[in-house]
């Protein structure tokens, strides 16, 4: 299960993780993901795997409104469809060549995705988006620790990376990012040392 539930939105990035011309890389429940921003500001989340030979999209480059694979420079448009194969410039690219596209929602300064997520992402209070902190513990353990000892002034959500590790994301209600960072790093030390 990798701690990933169908029907649920998970925050997988902050909006500030996606400047233009950059391919962001992360993992959700064991699925490697690549995310990038097109010129209209839209965010695209794909499986981090080129359908040609499986090279990671996150090694590639954003060129205008297309993502270009590092390996053989095939290009893919916003819908995920392959648009151009340099080795066969005259070929009309078959529609079946397609990146595996994941759902996307933007809210509270975060980028959300998931497996067939239902409705809208959870509402978070206003505040500043925290630095995401990876913790080498399963999501259930991190969630348990946060219920037992909630961190004051922070609205947190969890991104299960795989069955062993979790990223904590969220909002600092008082905008104090330095204080929040200390609190999350302390949480990380506590959980990893206890493991």
């Amino acid at each position, binding site marked *: 299960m990798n701690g990933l539930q169908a029907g649920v939105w998970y925050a997988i*990035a902050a909006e*500030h*993780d996606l*400047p233009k*011309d*950059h391919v*962001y*890389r*992360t*993992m959700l429940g064991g699925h490697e993901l690549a995310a990038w921003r097109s010129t209209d500001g839209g965010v695209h989340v794909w499986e981090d795997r080129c359908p040609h030979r499986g090279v990671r999209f996150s*090694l590639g*480059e954003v*060129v*205008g409104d297309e993502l*270009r694979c*590092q390996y053989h*420079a095939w290009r893919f448009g916003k819908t995920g469809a392959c648009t151009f194969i340099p080795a066969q410039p005259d070929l009309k690219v078959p529609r079946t060549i397609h990146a595996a596209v994941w759902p996307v929602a933007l809210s509270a300064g975060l980028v959300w995705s998931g497996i067939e997520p239902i409705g809208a992402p959870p509402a978070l209070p206003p505040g500043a988006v925290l*630095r*995401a902190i*990876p913790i080498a513990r399963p999501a259930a353990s991190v969630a348990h620790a946060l219920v037992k000892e909630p961190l004051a002034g922070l609205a947190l959500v969890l991104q299960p*990376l795989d069955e062993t590790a979790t*990223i904590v994301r969220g909002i600092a209600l008082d905008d104090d*990012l*330095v204080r929040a*960072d200390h609190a999350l790093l302390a949480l990380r030390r506590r959980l990893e040392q206890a493991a």
Partner: protein
Amino acid sequence: MILYDAHHLAPCYAVRLLAGCLGATLDLKPLDVYPGHANQTEAFLALNPLGTLPVLVDGPCLITDWLEALAHLALTHDRAWFPAEHAALIGWLGMARDLGASAGAARLIDTFGAPGDAAAARAQANALLDEVERRMWFGERIGQDWLIEGPHPSIADLACFVFIAPCEDGGLSLRDRPALRRWCDRVRFLPGFVSMSGVFPPMANTGR
């Protein structure tokens, strides 16, 4: 200027990278270190008794320390790369040397069979990478693109880059270090950038 060079060694790469960014021409003398041990010949040891690479020769000046070579190139070509007014320059160059002894060592152990304790090197590297990520992330919040305050990259960026960019070859990961990945992109897109194995260059014809 002559550079005694080994393509795969990050400290040599740092000098080639800075020369590229400065538009300076180096006369490269490639040495086969793995597996040839060309750095242990009497001829090379006469030049540099430590047997380390790179060695930079600029007229009467012979430099056997890679950070000193970076400083020399910056001071003789473009001082914007050597922000001496910032004490942080010293700290970041120290960080680069520490990254070399950890992330750099892990890469040499994993890819070239160099001797050493890979697990210990990775543990130290992970702590350093986390700290560089933290500082870079907070730097970005106040609009800083580079390790040292100001609009221009410094030799410290390149000195750290040569260990951070290819760190996955040493069993480390940048996946959960998004600010480092963005900073690596900024370095890759510098005019004059050159690459090394394990470091992807920007692709051709991007229309940038």
